[in-house]
């Protein structure tokens, strides 16, 4: 039994007759203690997937799934208060902008102990002194210097990196089994990014908690995750274990993303970009979602939606998955057009 089992998750907004599809048939499993990366452009449905898992998609959003389970318990059938109890204790989440994620009206100590007062152990719930000691210990665990003094600080007195550490401390306060980090380093500067990531991974290893790392930074995923999901326009287009998916991407989108990395463009005057934009609510193709932007798109790609295919751990949603040399397979032949050369 996996820690997280999501099958055919679908999240829609807007009116039922003309829905705006944010997440379209996402399957996701996370094993206990695993680090899973989730990458994709803005608007590809990464964050909404996480929110759906947390049960936080609000009206008018609609969530449907064949299965949505955490630690064997079906989340779809839970009442709101049961859901709240489960989610607050066993799943924790940290957000992109740490300063916005802390309540500006309360001190760090208050916000840390508040969680413990509700979800803590019996002893912690009873004793304020114990809670304070625990809060201090948590701040030390997230490597906040001079933790004692920071307890009395208000969020506006903290730097971004410091605030993100406090957020992490709050998230791990109840020893969650799963930590969802929604672009945890995007709002931080580069050196702090590295520190925060190292901290997240250390805590993940020490506590053997699962980590779902949502990001659009491929380098971050490459360094941290064991498995990665590449999302595009609400669909998973490719999944696979980490070194391999980067060495030999099977989906053209993954290939194009990798080709756009600055590291792969050394010596060029312009970065290689993916032309076009993510399809919006009105121009969502019925066939392969990538075909307007794909280098290899053929007639079939314009007519028929590909399924997520492949071996258990290595799947791609493409009619012509790429071979290890990065060329489309399965009888792909350019349609009269000159094949666009790579580069």
């Amino acid at each position, binding site marked *: 039994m996996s820690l997280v089992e999501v099958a055919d998750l679908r999240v829609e907004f807007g009116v039922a007759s003309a829905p705006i599809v944010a997440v379209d048939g996402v399957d996701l499993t996370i094993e206990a203690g695993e680090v899973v990366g989730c990458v994709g452009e803005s608007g590809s449905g990464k964050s909404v997937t996480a929110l759906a898992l947390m049960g936080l998609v609000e009206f008018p959003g609609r969530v449907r799934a064949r299965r949505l389970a955490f630690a064997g318990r079906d989340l779809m059938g839970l009442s709101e208060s049961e859901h709240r109890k489960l989610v607050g204790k066993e799943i*924790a989440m940290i957000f992109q902008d740490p300063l916005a994620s802390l309540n500006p*009206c309360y001190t760090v100590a208050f916000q840390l102990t508040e*969680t413990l007062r509700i979800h803590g152990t019996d002893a912690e719930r009873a004793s304020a002194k114990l809670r304070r000691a625990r809060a201090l210990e948590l701040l030390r665990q997230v490597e906040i210097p001079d933790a004692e003094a920071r307890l009395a600080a208000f969020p506006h007195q903290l730097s971004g990196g410091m605030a993100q550490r406090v957020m992490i401390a709050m998230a791990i306060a109840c020893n969650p089994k799963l930590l969802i980090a929604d672009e945890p380093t995007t709002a931080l500067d580069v050196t702090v990014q590295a520190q925060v990531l190292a901290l997240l991974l250390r805590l993940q290893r020490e506590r053997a908690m699962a980590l779902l790392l949502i990001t659009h930074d491929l380098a971050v995923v490459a360094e941290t995750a064991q498995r990665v999901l590449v999302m595009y326009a609400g669909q998973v287009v490719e999944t696979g274990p980490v070194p391999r998916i980067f060495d030999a991407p099977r989906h053209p989108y993954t290939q194009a993303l990798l080709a756009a990395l600055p590291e792969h463009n050394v010596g060029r005057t312009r970065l290689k970009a993916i032309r076009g934009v993510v399809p919006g609510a009105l121009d969502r193709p019925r066939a392969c979602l990538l075909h307007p932007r794909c280098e290899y798109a053929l007639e079939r790609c314009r007519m028929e939606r590909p399924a997520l295919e492949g071996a258990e751990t290595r799947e791609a949603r493409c009619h012509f998955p790429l071979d290890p040399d990065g060329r489309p397979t399965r009888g792909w032949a350019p349609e009269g057009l000159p094949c666009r050369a790579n580069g």
Partner: protein
Amino acid sequence: MIEVEETLEIGLEPIPRVDGPLTEFWRAYAQNRGALLGLSLAAALLLLAIFAGVIAPHSPYEQFREATLTPPAWQAGGDPRFMLGTDPVGRDILSRLIYGTRLSLLIGLISVAISLSLGIVLGMIAGYIRGWTETAIMRLMDVMLALPSLLLAIAVVAILGPGLINAMYAIAIVLLPHYVRLTRAAVIAEAGREYVQSSRIAGAGATRLMFSTILPNCLAPLIVQATLGFSSAILDAAALGFLGLGAQPPTPEWGSMLADALEFIQRASWVVTFPGLAILATVLAFNLMGDGLRDALDPKLKR
């Protein structure tokens, strides 16, 4: 990536001493001279109200039959016993004004307290729950706003019957839509913020989210509106008193003092001048104070 961890130990110097929120607030407030004036005036009025029994030279109800309509002490025919003169039945105007302070501040305090607490609850529900609940609450408030405030207050008093307490209720109802709208707007803005979401993820329930997470962040505009509402409550109470719908004689309420003395305005101008000035000074004091509070509490207006 891992070697970065070692460099963490630097930066161990203690956090610089930052002013507490109160010190910071006071510094911003004290920059505004008008606000300081308003604050001192309001403080003086508060002292007058509390110590009315000690300060006032006479009882507000005592009638000096031999000295009706005595002019103020500095005018010809004035009596040093009655600093600001006496009214048509010989009561000392100064004493009545001093006791009136008590009533006016009480009216302001109670009506603002009622409408503020009711407004916060309604506005919070409207802004947090949204949907048809919000529509129902906000449209009702729109209807109340569409009526001229004094007319609405008169209508409410007509239903409840005249009297000081009912006037307070009426004023509270008139002021209510402002607080509801203000709270709702602030709540909608705050409810979408990430800290609310992270609090929800941590398992906070609706009541906790509304009143413990969101509300403290919405207080600044409400404090300002409450101060400004204080002065309009006093003004409305005086208007109701003047129309005979608020405080009933012989209560020394400023509005009803004006009404009682109206027929003597040609002959004895002091009977209407001083209650009017008292209303003016009080309203001015609270408006200045409210403006100063707004400047000090609104980060957008800070330099």
